[in-house]
């Protein structure tokens, strides 16, 4: 039983190491900022996730305590990673507004970095 648990823990640690490495490598290899944003938002999620799963299995199997901290870290990671990525993307688009060609938007209002929302008074509905 201990053997199986050890193999499981090792498996998840190796998986997370590989994905963490690939994610970091992607940061160097990819060409522009928008492409580089893909590496840390995805490949690294599984990297951190693997360590957390390994930690949960380890504490459950060898220390006989069920720890919820890893679950919380996962939840917070999944909540914060997209928000941070979104901030970086938007900052980039504002900084390099004249260099990055955006596709035309299909509606009258235009993209949010160029135009104000049309109906601020309309509280809540159809607001980003």
């Amino acid at each position, binding site marked *: 039983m201990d053997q199986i648990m050890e193999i499981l823990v090792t498996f998840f640690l190796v998986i997370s190491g590989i994905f963490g490495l690939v994610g970091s490598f992607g940061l160097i290899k990819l060409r522009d900022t928008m492409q580089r944003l*893909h590496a840390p938002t995805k490949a690294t999620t599984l990297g951190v996730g693997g360590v957390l799963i390994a930690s949960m299995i380890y504490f459950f199997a060898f220390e006989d305590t069920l720890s919820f901290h890893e679950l919380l870290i996962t939840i917070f990671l999944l909540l914060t990673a*997209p928000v941070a990525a979104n901030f970086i993307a938007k900052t980039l688009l504002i900084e390099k507004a004249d260099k990055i060609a955006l596709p035309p938007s299909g509606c009258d209002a235009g993209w949010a970095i160029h135009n104000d929302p049309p109906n601020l008074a309309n509280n809540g509905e159809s607001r980003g």
Partner: protein
Amino acid sequence: MFKRLIPHPFLSVGLVVVWLMLVNHFSLGNLLLGAVLGILVPALTGPYWPNKPSVGRPLKIIEYILVVLWDIVVANVQVALLILFKRNANLKSQWIVVPMELTSPEAITVLAGTITMTPGTVSAMLTADASEILVHCLHTDDPEGTRDDIKNRYERRLKEIFQ
């Protein structure tokens, strides 16, 4: 009275659960402290959150979470393979515009987050009237297909959850 004390019941329950997970030890004292937090935090942040989102169908929410978790694993593998085995010159990165039928800010937030965490796409921006979302694809040969995937897989489910 009850509605004034607990304006967002799900937020309150969530805060209590998160608090209990943080202290990692269940006792009456911790439960009470969690309950105090669960009442105080929504009351203090209430003014910033005037519209209560209507969330329904718990089974649909669980289904959505499972679908997204699975897609995150798939996305990780896909992006890792692209990084490792695709030459930079062959990467066809491009912007795609996804029109949305969702209207509530909460639903759009969840959709934007989901797009960022799942296969090869990062959400970047909305139109000013929040009717379309700008998505960056790391590599795609078929922009229309990717757009339809997002609409069918995530937006359709979110529409059922946030009616």
